């Protein structure tokens, strides 16, 4: 009863200070409730101090990204502290999924998420040994499982069934991951990881994965992007100043673009190309030499393939499962939206030879009718 009142009071207090415009800010009362329940579960009232801390960050940090990072950090510390205090894994898992998957609330399809909650409970219940790593693995699997299509929801349950033959199953899943499209590959790899967690005997071996889990929780304000594109965390962020171009080429269409002096890269993405596998040709870039300066052999045309760039919205929640586009080799995409809706667009960088001030970009004629090659900008 005490904790219930504490939770209600915390939620009310957070609702009174909402000032940010993002879904994460609007979810502050929910986060307050989660922090309070974590404190109850771990029997450590100090964890609930996260509530006034969240409120302080909400009202005093004007910069959106900094504020969301701080909120993420606070929640990560709460979960880490609860796990360290051997809180109930079932409670922890449900709360983790609420934070990672239920924000923004308006995007949640309740019955699908409840199925996943049930699945993670079953995963934890069927684990041979409950350790922080096994808990993390169970939550990770539920985290990366897409809510749609329905068959994907069954993945955690299927993995639970495979536990008696965990090691051969892990090998097979790893092999499948090598050939499958990115969404399936991710599911297979995380499933395989879950199955082999009993192999980890030492804390030293577990440490990197626990760290990764803490990082994922700290980045829950953009959990969708983390779930669907973890590679973006390892990539070098693109901070070069960009000149916007904004041209979309239909198949076989071509355009000549004058570029500012010193341009070294084009920023390219695709539209309606999620079905294309890695290596498929999207178009070509031909540097056009100035006639007055022409001399020597012209630079070769540069092929733009899937893998250099991806469909602009390939990582969106509704497109991810069917997408065959991999994460761009040199990503130039920006982060969009928040929470489970967050995604990184599929823009990629195409390197140009030095001194080029004019290029012809031609879309592949064999692209489907609705597909487009988008020239976003230059850097």
């Amino acid at each position, binding site marked *: 009863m*005490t*904790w219930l*009142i*504490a939770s209600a*009071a*915390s939620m*009310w*207090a*957070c609702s*009174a*200070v909402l000032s940010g415009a993002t879904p994460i800010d609007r979810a502050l009362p929910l986060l*307050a409730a989660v922090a*309070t329940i974590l*404190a*109850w579960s771990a029997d450590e*009232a*100090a964890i*609930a*101090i*996260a*509530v*006034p*801390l969240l*409120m*302080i960050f909400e*009202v*005093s940090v*004007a*910069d959106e*990204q*900094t504020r969301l*990072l701080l909120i993420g*950090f606070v929640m*990560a510390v709460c979960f880490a502290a609860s796990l360290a205090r051997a809180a109930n894994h079932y409670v922890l898992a449900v709360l983790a999924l609420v934070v990672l998957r239920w924000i923004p609330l308006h995007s949640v399809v309740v019955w699908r998420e409840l199925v996943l909650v049930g699945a993670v409970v079953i995963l934890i219940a069927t684990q041979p040994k409950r350790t922080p790593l096994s808990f993390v693995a169970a939550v990770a699997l539920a985290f990366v499982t897409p809510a749609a299509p329905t068959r994907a929801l069954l993945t955690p349950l299927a993995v639970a069934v495979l536990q008696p033959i965990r090691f051969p199953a892990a090998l097979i899943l790893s092999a499948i991951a090598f050939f499958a499209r990115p969404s399936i590959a991710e599911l297979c790899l995380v499933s395989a990881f879950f199955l082999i967690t009993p192999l980890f005997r030492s*804390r030293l071996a577990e*440490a990197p994965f*626990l*760290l990764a889990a*803490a*990082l994922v929780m*700290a*980045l829950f304000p953009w959990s969708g992007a983390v779930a669907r594109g973890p590679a*973006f*965390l390892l990539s070098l*962020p693109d*901070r070069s100043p960009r000149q916007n171009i904004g041209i979309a080429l239909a198949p076989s269409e071509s355009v000549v673009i004058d570029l500012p002096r010193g341009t070294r890269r084009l920023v390219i993405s695709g539209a309606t190309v999620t079905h294309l596998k890695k290596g498929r040709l999207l178009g070509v870039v031909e540097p056009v030499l100035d006639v007055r300066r022409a001399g020597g052999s012209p630079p070769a045309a540069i092929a733009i393939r899937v893998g250099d760039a991806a469909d602009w919205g390939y990582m969106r929640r509704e497109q991810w499962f069917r997408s065959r586009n991999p994460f761009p080799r040199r990503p130039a995409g920006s982060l969009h939206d928040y929470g489970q809706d967050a995604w990184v667009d599929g823009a990629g960088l195409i390197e140009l030879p030095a001194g080029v001030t004019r290029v012809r970009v031609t879309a592949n004629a064999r692209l489907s009718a609705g597909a487009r090659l988008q020239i976003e900008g230059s850097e």
Partner: protein
Amino acid sequence: MTYFVIAAATLSVLPVLVLQGRTLAHCAATELSLAAIASVCWWHFSPRVEPRLAAVTFCALLLTVLMLFIARGVEVRWSAGRAAMVALIVYGLCVPAMLLTPIDGDEPYYLLLTDSLLHDRDLDLRNQYRSREMAVTGRADLQAMPGDPIGPNGEQYSRHEPFLPALMLPGYAVAGLPGALATIVIFGGLLVRSTIRMLEDEGIDDATTRSVFAFVALGPPLLFYAVRIWPEVPAAWCFVEAIRGIRQRRSGRWVTPLLALVLLKLRFVLVGLVLVLRSRRSWLAVLLLIPMAVFWLVSGSASSVHTWRELLPGVPIAYLHGLLGLLIDGMAGIAFQAPFYLLGILALTRWRSMPESFRIGCVASSLYILYLIPRAEWHGGWSPPLRYITFLMPVLALGAAALLEETVAARAWLAPIAIATFALVVHGVTYPWRLFHIANGENPAGEALSLLYRSDFSRLFPSLIRPNLAALYGGIALAVILIVVATRRVAWPAPFVAPLLAIIFALGFSAGTRPAARIEFEDAHVGHDGGQLYPEEYTISRFLYTGGWDVGPGDSLSFLARKGPSTLRYSSTTGATMELAGRAYPLSPSSHGMVRVELPRSGRVTLRMLDGHVVLDRMDHD
């Protein structure tokens, strides 16, 4: 960047000094995780944070992790000596942060005295006040303070006692200003060691001592005074040693530190007197004349700049004013500047069960406090907060530790106190110049929120420098809490600590965004377009003046105000005309002028000066 790397690396290695085995491994893993997460976040998201603030916050987080493991770890190599080593290293890392701006307050004067002792072998500062000699302080604007003693041959002496400069002499001779600071840092380490020993002497268990260590050694005010040139930390060390000597009933043990205490600052003679009387060797009180003799020999005045009139009682309300200020003032009170020591204040309500050293220390300082609180400068003047009672902090720490051992409810408050302490430390180390506040009734937190929301948040913090309604409510709340703790009738459940703070914060935020009944025109929430602060920022004893904003033709101020009639107070020698909410108001010449204004609606209004000059003080809603 280099400094940050050195600091982070040093803090990362620090756990080896005090932890071992699995606890050390877990601490290292946690710190690495923190570093990894911080790196990824910084790398990818480039948060718009001042790099200096980010660096200090990261280092403070590393230190916090270590302190958590020291407090809760199993395999901890704990001793007073190791605690002192940790403190010394942290203080040493903080010194460069403090040197970001030139030394301030009394610090340059102590340094000049040291320089004079080293080079001139005297205390005559006439040559030191010339620009060339002042370069060592980084200040070119130093002059003798009004009232500083003048010798028979025109010597310019300082009001500050020469004992601290004498102590800093060796360090200063070797390494100049950093060497002088190193002397204070060493005293900081000695103080930490002595404080831990005092806790151990009084039977405080190991776990509790380790829990309070971080708050005492690495929290305000001791942290800030251990890395700056003030006598407060050496004085605190002398005080603790004197108490320990009295407890051990060895007069040889406490007489020397007591003498040193009074030599450091003559005001501590009030402490020494009570200690001596309490020691049942009252005749030793004559020894307290030695420091006075030294001062007389040095400056020709046994009491330096103090007069016997200071011993006369002040007006009764001034005592309440100063006492409440020391406890709850937003800028200069324990509650907001060193919240951990509130537990020490609460320990006073459990007098009989408190350790003997705590009672000795509190009784010894009572006369000193009695003479401090009615003074106009009870808040310390131009110095980091809590200057005049920093020496008492180890004693309060002992009381806090004893209270934590006695009551479970007290432990529930450690988490919010830790958060507040963390924020204060990060703020003070990142912006050391903000440790000095102009004592206008505002405070850094209130000013920051006021600037962000352009609404008066400072009024929500109690102020006894510029008394406000929050001070009244705060005083009542404090009285209630003291009564509750003393009677032990109600224990606040641990799960309700965070929600209580959250509710207070929510109510405060809601109130803060609404127009205030009183608008002080010099405050941060007022938008100033032209004009200047009156009196100017570095006016000596500025807190004694009625401050305001000096405006002339074309200047304007914007602020949130309430609808309806208000009274505006001003002073003007020439008279002026101002426009407010579409109406013009003539301001006749007056040193304490008042004009009634009428605002048609609540919200943001702009006051424009049409002609003349006026110092606008405040506006009160009727």
